[in-house]
């Protein structure tokens, strides 16, 4: 029997505000900041302290809601979610429950079967908890993160495979980056996933018991966790068993999910309206002004790139995958005489190879757009050959410097002088009579081999068009 997965995703994203959700404490890097330095009576739950809303957090949340095509509610309600845990200083988390900020949105993802729409059920605001760590039989609590604004984005159970889950997560990640509402820094836990997974017989539209996998904190964990869970549930049904409703953890080391709480131990959060905060009432004009200030989003940018720069969807997709990369591409285009398509292939090829090899962040591209434009233009006007330009680019990545200077220092300028090239070709043909004979006998693929020899002998400086022309002529001369 074939099984199909039914998956809904809850994403928690920290919002890029200067201060916390309900107090004036600074939001800091929770990994590098000294513990418990950015705290106050409000975010440590001191008796009598009261929450006050951070307007910026609401603005960022509205921005996301609008970008996801949600309906933004002009009145929403904060609610208390009650449970005990040491990282939750008040004994309740201020969240939103039955009247969230935004509902009914959608995100388009690309699947093997084409474009698919994933419905967004709700987008709401809440506060983050503190962070626990354990060492030497002690537990430590750091409240620096307590009260940091969090956005929860919940889908309908529209995802059908780990690949779709990943596509959705990647897309959402990109959108949040485009909106500049989240740092996107997954390693710091600024985006965290929870997946609700059930499986059913292929073709059925029934919804079976689901399990909830918590704390999937990377794309990898998200894919592996859902993959494992789908398989696990499928095997249970295959042997006639019943899937229990439970909350699961995921162990990245073993690649397996494990039970955290069963249905019986499920929390009853006893939600009720937060009496310390009046209903959040938004002005429609304010919402509209946020809508007007929304940046171009990935889909729109992709369409534009394909049209404006005559790129293929594949080329455009790479460039728009990160806003900073897209911006960089456009800057190079604006500073270059070369066709956008040529620039795109340089960025997709050598450029990305170095970015990835050197593990560089898009925020820290070491090469000025102006310099890359110049280098590509030098290829265009044949000042350097393509292979020399690669050497120059490598040098720029490793040690910096202007392309023109590197070309000069390394003596990489392309040579078009016929006499020079002719001498080298003559030597190659004389040194390799066997290959000449084979070529003349019809093994045309050897042309590339001769070209390679010539490039090596000239250290890539010879103008390839000229070289090819002279080479063909010289070989033909041999025939006589």
């Amino acid at each position: 029997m074939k099984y199909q997965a039914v998956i809904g995703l809850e994403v928690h994203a920290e919002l890029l505000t200067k201060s916390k959700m309900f107090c004036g404490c600074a939001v800091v890097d929770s990994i590098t900041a000294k513990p418990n330095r950015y705290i106050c009576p409000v975010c440590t739950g001191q008796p009598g302290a009261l929450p006050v809303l951070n307007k910026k957090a609401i603005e960022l949340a509205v921005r996301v809601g609008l970008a996801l095509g949600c309906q933004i509610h002009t009145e929403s309600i904060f609610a208390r979610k009650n449970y005990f845990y040491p990282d939750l200083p008040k004994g309740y988390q201020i969240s939103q429950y039955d009247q969230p900020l935004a509902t009914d949105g959608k995100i388009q993802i690309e699947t093997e079967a084409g474009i698919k729409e994933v419905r967004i059920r709700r987008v709401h605001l809440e506060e983050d908890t503190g962070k626990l760590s354990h060492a030497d039989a002690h537990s430590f609590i750091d409240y620096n993160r307590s009260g940091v604004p969090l956005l929860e984005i919940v889908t309908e159970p529209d995802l059908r495979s780990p690949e779709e889950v990943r596509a959705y997560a990647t897309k959402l990640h990109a959108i949040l980056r485009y909106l500049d509402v989240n740092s996107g820094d997954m390693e710091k836990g600024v985006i965290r996933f929870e997946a609700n997974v059930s499986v059913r017989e292929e073709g059925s539209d029934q919804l079976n018991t689901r399990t909830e996998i918590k704390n999937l904190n990377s794309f990898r964990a998200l894919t592996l966790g859902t993959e494992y869970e789908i398989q696990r549930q499928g095997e249970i049904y295959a042997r006639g068993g019943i899937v229990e409703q439970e909350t699961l953890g995921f162990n990245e080391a073993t690649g397996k999910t494990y039970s955290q709480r069963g249905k019986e131990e499920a929390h009853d959060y006893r939600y009720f309206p937060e009496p310390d905060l009046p209903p959040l009432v938004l002005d429609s004009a304010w919402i509209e002004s946020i809508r007007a200030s929304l940046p171009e989003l990935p889909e729109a940018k992709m369409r534009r790139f394909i049209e404006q720069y005559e790129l293929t969807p594949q080329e455009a997709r790479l460039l728009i995958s990160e806003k900073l990369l897209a911006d960089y591409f456009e800057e190079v285009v604006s500073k270059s005489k070369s066709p956008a398509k040529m620039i795109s292939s340089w960025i997709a090829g050598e450029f990305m190879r170095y970015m990835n090899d050197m593990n560089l962040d898009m925020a820290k591209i070491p090469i000025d757009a102006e310099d890359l434009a110049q280098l590509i233009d030098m290829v265009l006007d044949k000042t350097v050959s393509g292979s020399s330009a690669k050497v120059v680019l490598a040098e720029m990545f490793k040690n910096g410097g202007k392309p023109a200077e590197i070309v000069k220092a390394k003596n990489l300028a392309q040579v078009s002088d016929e006499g020079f090239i002719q001498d080298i070709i003559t030597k190659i043909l004389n040194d390799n009579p066997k290959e000449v004979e084979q070529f003349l006998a019809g093994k045309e693929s050897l042309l590339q081999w001769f070209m390679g020899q010539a490039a090596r002998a000239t250290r890539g400086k010879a103008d390839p068009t000229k070289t090819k022309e002279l080479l063909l002529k010289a070989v033909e001369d041999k025939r006589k």
Partner: protein
Amino acid sequence: MQLHELSIQETHELLSSRKISSEELTRAYLERIHRLDPQIKSYVTVADELALEQARDADQRLKTDESCTPLTGIPYSAKDSISTRGINTTCSSKILENYKPFYDATAIKKLISTNSVLLGKNNMDEFGMGSSTENSGFFTTRNPWNFDHVPGGSSGGSAAAVAAGLAPFALGEDTGGSVRMPASFCGITGLKTTYGRVSRYGLIPLVSSFDTIGPMALSAYDVALVLEAIAGHDRKDSTSRLESVQNYSASLKQSENLRGLRIGIPKEYFVEGLDPEVDSSLRTAIKQIESLGAEVVEVSLPHTQYAIPVYYLISFAEASSNLAKYDGIRFGLSERNAESLMDVYLKTRELGFGAETKRRIMLGTFALSAGYYDAYYLKAQKVRTLIRQDFEKAFESCDALITPVSPTTAFRIGEKITNPLDMYLSDVFVVAVNLAGIPALSVPCGLSNGLPIGMQIMGPLLSEETLLRIGHMYQSQTDWHTKHPPCWNDLP
């Protein structure tokens, strides 16, 4: 005449003409507290050193600064649920026995800025849960009029301190009658303010939707002086009101009578069970108010009978959540002789909370539970709206309503403690005001067997000025507020 017998206004005149210093005044109160309070037990903490330091600061300002207010250099006490930086703030709970906040409540900050002098913190029912101070985790406060009787609650310590001359005024806190009931039982004047009129920032919450800080003093005029100092919008409290604060005391000085005011008498508050002496005192008081020029009419608040269940349901629910932070992790009592995290929680809360607190946490948790929320909490909120609408309708035709504060005078210590329901019912006339968020003033209007009787004057939102005016005019024609318990002059 001794210093504690003066009104705030009279004391202010002595201070500003420098006939006495705030330090002398403060020493006199501290001396009285140390002499009398071991029997009355109105204070949980007496802050001698800080008080004298604050008094000396006040003296400095009285000497040099023209901008002194009527409260500069005046001592006061505060209910122990109001946060005071560096001074124990216990809510009379063992779970907060040694808790010293690292910040001041906004109301305290405002009194610091006027250079008032904090004498100490008053006993209360644990977290405000009770009507007698018998639920204090430490000890029961005695009614200064008769030590065998309760002072009322939950701000019983504050009421007893003012009534016994151990503080010229006190900051109380009213969630479901907690200022008015003890004010009535102890024969002083107490104001339950409009919800949001005084910032709740730093007030340790019992029921966030109902909690209000309010002044307790010997007269409506003194109450007005304190209200002016502590009221106002606070950015740290999102539920505080934006409206500017009136100059209440100035308007009291100008008022001459109550002409033009229409006073409603809700018939649901004069029913069976009302002590006949309370009833007759109230009727006399209403006649006196009528003779001051007010028109008196009968009105109806038809949903009054639901006020008690609605109030207790909502308050238990919110309290169960508000008390979750006392988990032994960050402050207060922490039972570390425990096997696990759950064990820390269980032992800390088992040892730290009293019986009434535990009862309310359990009932409130139940009322909010999945499957019960709609039937209890949500239903209660709907009925709350009906009760609020009762008042709105009554205030369409009336400027204020007058009722008793309590059906009886102060009951005996131990009389109701074993019957929680009976105890809850003693709040029958006071809780509706909290459900509606409106202000109400309690003024003494009689004595029965040597125990005070209180009149409750209720008004629409932000009608404090009208209520204080009625109270003030009434007190200008009567002398109940100038009668004092036997311990006023000294211990019997």
